[in-house]
């Protein structure tokens, strides 16, 4: 895995920066949290 080269993101992430990965994860988590809350 580590030998693979990618011209976008890093060897650990498809996102261009950690901040963008964090914010996307945050949005995704809130969608799950409130999606579950309103459907259960």
């Amino acid at each position: 895995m580590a030998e693979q080269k990618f011209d976008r993101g890093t060897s650990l992430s498809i996102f261009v920066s950690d901040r963008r990965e964090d914010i996307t994860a945050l949005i995704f988590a809130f969608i799950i949290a409130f999606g579950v809350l309103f459907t259960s």
Partner: protein
Amino acid sequence: MVYTVKSSALLIIGIIMLAWAGLNSSGAIDGIQSYLLASDYKDHTKVMKKYEAQLKEATDKAAAEGKAAPEMKMPASKFDHAKATQSTMSNYFGAFFVLIGLFTLAWKPKPGNLDYFVSVVPGIAYILLIAFIVRWGLDPIFGNWGKAAEPALGWNFAKIFNLNYVVIGIVIGIIAVNVFRIPAWAANGVRTARFFLKTGVILLGTLYSAAELAQLGALSVVMIGIFVLGSVWMVLFMGKRMGTPNSMTAVLSAGMGVCGVSATVAASPVVQAKAEEIAYTIGTILIWGVGCMFVFPTIGHLLHMGPVQFGAWAGTGILNSAQVAGAALAFDPRNIETLKVAEIFNITRVLFLPIIVLWLAAWYVKHEEGAQKVNLTQVLVAKFPVFVLGFIAMFALSSMGVFAPAGHYKGKYFSSAEIKEDKLLKSGEASALQGELDRLRGAEGSQALSKYLTESHVTLGKRNVTSDDVYTSLTELVANRKIMTREEDSVLESLAKMDGIDKAAKEAISTAHDAAYHTSKSIKSYRNWIAWLFAFGLIGLGMQITGKALKQAGGAPLVIGGVVGTVKAVGSLVVVMLFVKEFI
């Protein structure tokens, strides 16, 4: 650069998932599933027996009345629900992967966003297929083996060695990359692992509530606070001295300080830990914990420790929840008092996680900037991992009662008002309790009760429980046929442990206790989401651990872990021996 690799692999994975869904729905693999979903299958046989009895009764009644046999449908059991979940998940993902798989084969990719995001799908499918195998296959198989070997070994090896989907997932990931290598078509998608892990960590905040802290004794908070913060500080200090990378030191400090595996996973993205550093930390914690589990009970017996003392020591000194429970039960298999105290200390430690995560985030940002003087506020704003704020926000929302009644812990909460009519105590159970109440009010009974309450140091908040508390709680329970308050529940739980209490009365108290505690549906759902996100993320992380990388990580973490673990175990033992008897 074109990322999409033309391959039929995605199509094949989609077909495998659809086939699994079909086999589940048709009942063709019920034999295998009854083994894998053993506890759900027990429920299924109960529901089936009840249904057959009802059907027979209705048929006999109809025959006696000269009517046609009635049409009845067996209600769905937990087993049916579990199979349905597997079918639904396999169907949705399978259909999606088949569609994208066909598209990939037919399409001529060009560099750009569409190529980039389509190329992520095969890697996700690859990890998800392994996650299905781990969660639906290997995890229950090890669970069953652990239970089967328990009578011979005297302990459940699957629980003690943490052979659940977390550890199995990482190991499978390591095997996948070191033995088979990651196929080119999956390489881009494997890089989504950390993203899903971060999402899981944010959702983890929904499971805890600050109100739970109010239920804990002051001693456990102070003692755990000192040892958690002290261990984290000590690992950070030793790591700096021994020159281990900041990310390695930070992730090890979370693992050694808070609660083992979950703290390690939660802290890893905060400090940008490498996959092999996470694996090293988890390995160190588990090996250390297994050793403690065998050594602690022996030392406890040698020092003639009481249940409260040993529970406090195990809950502070041992890092992993299952190993804490294992040590407490090994020390005192008959009485759950030790286990209960150990769990209180264990819960307190887990509740320190948000504080530690924030501390490590700030520490890591500061130390990664190098020796030059930096404006910490500016650096924090620029580099602070935003998802940590998500975790804290979820924890705050959970504490406010947004996801489940405030005061819940991992979705379990007390509510007398929500007890349904069929869960109220039956008349026979109420009579057993009344009989016990009369006995305890008698001369001999009241003397024994008073002696038990004094000798066992039974407390309610900051005050000692009195015989009157017990009489009131029992009277209320008999009158209402349910437990009305959390305090009464606590008093009755303590009473049930007293020697000489009638077996039927003990069972009635246990039934009333179970009826008063409810599990939040939404929290149950979150737990499921978290489990899937962690399984996915950890398999993906495992795929980034090569043998070469493990060698590079070196043996320093093991040394630091061993030293800090020993200091923590010895230090907490001294504190327990000196203070615990007097304070609890």
